[in-house]
C-alpha cells in the first residue's frame, strides 16, 4: 500500500468522514477499489478509530457541562502514570485524559449533565483514587473552537458573483 496515498485518504476522511470511496477516488485520482482497500485496512489496523460528528449541542438546546480537572498524583513502585491514567479513563463521564507537563500530572476533561454531576463525579471517583494527591476543577463556560473548528460565525463570503 502506497504510504502517500494512505495519508491523503486519511486526511480527506479526517475532515469529512461522510465522503464515499467513489468521491474520494474522484478527488485524488486514485482507483475506487484502492480507496476502499485503504479504508478497510486502516479500520482494521486501528488507525481509523471511529467516525464521529462534531455537534454544537447548544444549537438544539441540549446543554452539557464540561470541566477540565488538573490532577496531581503520587507515583509508587506499583503504580505508574499509565496505571492511574487507565483507571481514570475508563469512566464514561471522562471525555479525555492527557499526561501533561507543568504543575499537574494529568488533564482530565469530564462531561456531565450539570455542575453538580461533574463536581460529585470528581469528588467521588477521581479524588478518592489513592494515588491522587489533589485536583483542581475548571468549569468550561463557553467554547470557541473545538477540534480545529470555529464555533462562531463572524465572516461571510462577500465575493462578487463574477470576477475575471
Amino acid at each position: 500500500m502506497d504510504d502517500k496515498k494512505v495519508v491523503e485518504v486519511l486526511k480527506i476522511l479526517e475532515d469529512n468522514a461522510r465522503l464515499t470511496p467513489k468521491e474520494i477516488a474522484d478527488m485524488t485520482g486514485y482507483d475506487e477499489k484502492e480507496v476502499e482497500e485503504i479504508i478497510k485496512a486502516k479500520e482494521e489496523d486501528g488507525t481509523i478509530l471511529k467516525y464521529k460528528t462534531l455537534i454544537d449541542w447548544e444549537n438544539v438546546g441540549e446543554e452539557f457541562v464540561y470541566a477540565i480537572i488538573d490532577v496531581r498524583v503520587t507515583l509508587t513502585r506499583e503504580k505508574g502514570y499509565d496505571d492511574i491514567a487507565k483507571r481514570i479513563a475508563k469512566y464514561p463521564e471522562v471525555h479525555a485524559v492527557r499526561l501533561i507537563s507543568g504543575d499537574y500530572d494529568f488533564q482530565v476533561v469530564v462531561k456531565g449533565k450539570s455542575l453538580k454531576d461533574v463536581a460529585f463525579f470528581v469528588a467521588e471517583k477521581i479524588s478518592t483514587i489513592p494515588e491522587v494527591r489533589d485536583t483542581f476543577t475548571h468549569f468550561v463556560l463557553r467554547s470557541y473552537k473545538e477540534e480545529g473548528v470555529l464555533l462562531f460565525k463572524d465572516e461571510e463570503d462577500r465575493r462578487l458573483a463574477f470576477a475575471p
Partner: protein
Amino acid sequence: MKRTGGLRLPRRISERVDSIKPSGIRKFFDLVMGRPDVISLGVGEPDFPVPWRIRDEMIYSLEKGITSYTSNHGLPELREEIARYYKKFGVRYVDPNNIIITTGVSEGIDLALRALINPGDAVLIPEPAYVSYKPLTILAGGEAVTIPTTPDFKPSYELLARFAKRCDPKAIVINYPNNPTGVSYSKKELEEIADLAIEFDLVIISDEIYAELTYSGKHVSIASLNGMEERTVILNGFSKAFAMTGLRVGYAIAPPDIAEAMLKIHQYCMLCAPITSQIGALEALRGCEEELDNIRAEYMRRRNFFVKRLSNIFEIRKPDGAFYAFPKIEGYGLSSEEFTERLLMDKGVAVVPGNAFGDCGEGYIRCAYAVTMEKLKEAVDRIEDFVKNL
C-alpha cells in the same frame, strides 16, 4: 453663465478609450441579482479567507499607526523577501532593487506595457487570455496581436513565429498557469517561447500570479531559462495564493532598465502600494508555507473531483494549475454566452463565457472551482441536469 463649447460633448471621451469594449461579463451581474440560490463558479477569487496571521499582522500595524507612504519601490524588507522567495521558481538571483511592489498584478501589467510600448508597437497575446492584456496594450498605444491557441492552449514556437513574422512585435504577454484555461507550460514549452523571444528580440511579460497553485509538477519561471532574465518582466502577487485579492498587492521583477522605467510610471500614478497590504504580504512570505500547502492540496482535490465529473459531460483538458476548468460546450447548439445565460437562469449556476477571454474562447465556458466541495458537487449536478435537457 457663458455658453461655450457643447458641440464636443458627445465626443469628449478619448477615442482610444472609446474603442475598448467593456468587459463581457458585466451583463451577467444583473442576472444574478436577487437570486440567493445561485452557486457562483464565476469568481476568479479564492474562497479561503486571508490566513489569520496575515490579517493579524496588518491589524497590529494599524494599531501602531503604520499608515504612511512607503518608498516608491515598496518596503525594502518585502523586496528582499521576494528576492529570496523567487528562487523557488528557479530564478537564481534577484536584485531587490529590480523589484517594484505594485497594487496588484493588474498595475504591474499596465506599468510593463506602458514602459515598453511606442505608438503602434505590436504586442503578442496568446489567447484565451486574462481580460486586461489587450485593453491595457491598446491604452498604452500599442497594437494587440491576439493569437488563438485552441484547442491545446499551448503557444508553440511555430504558432507564435507565424504571427511574429507578420507584425514585428516588441513584447509577448504570457500567463501560466493560465486564467482561464488552467494550462501551464513545461520547461520544454517555455524554451520554445524563449527561442522565439531571442529570435524576434522580444520582451516577455510573464504573469505568474497562479504559480503557487500548480498541481502537476512545479512552476518554473521563464526568467530562469538561459538568457531570459535580461528580457523578462515577472509579474506576481498575493491575491490568489494568499487570497489577498481586495488588498491589491503584487510585484514586478524586471531587468534594471525596464524596472527603472516602470518605477517612473508607478511613482506618478500610484506612488506606492498600500502599506498595510505590503505588511500583510511580508507576513504571507514569512509565515504561511504550511497554510499554503494545505490550500494547494485542497484545490487539487477539488480540481480532480470537478474535472472528473465534468469530463462525463464535456470535452475537457485537465488543468495543471490555477482554479479554473475550461470545458468545451460546443455541440449543444448554444454560443458561450447563451449557454452561460441559460445555465444561470435555469439552474442557478454562474460561469463565465469563454469568449470573455478572446474570440477563440467561443465554444468554451470558464468554471472556477474556488468553492467548497459541497457546493462544487451541487453545481456539477445542476450542470449535468441542465445539459441533459438541452
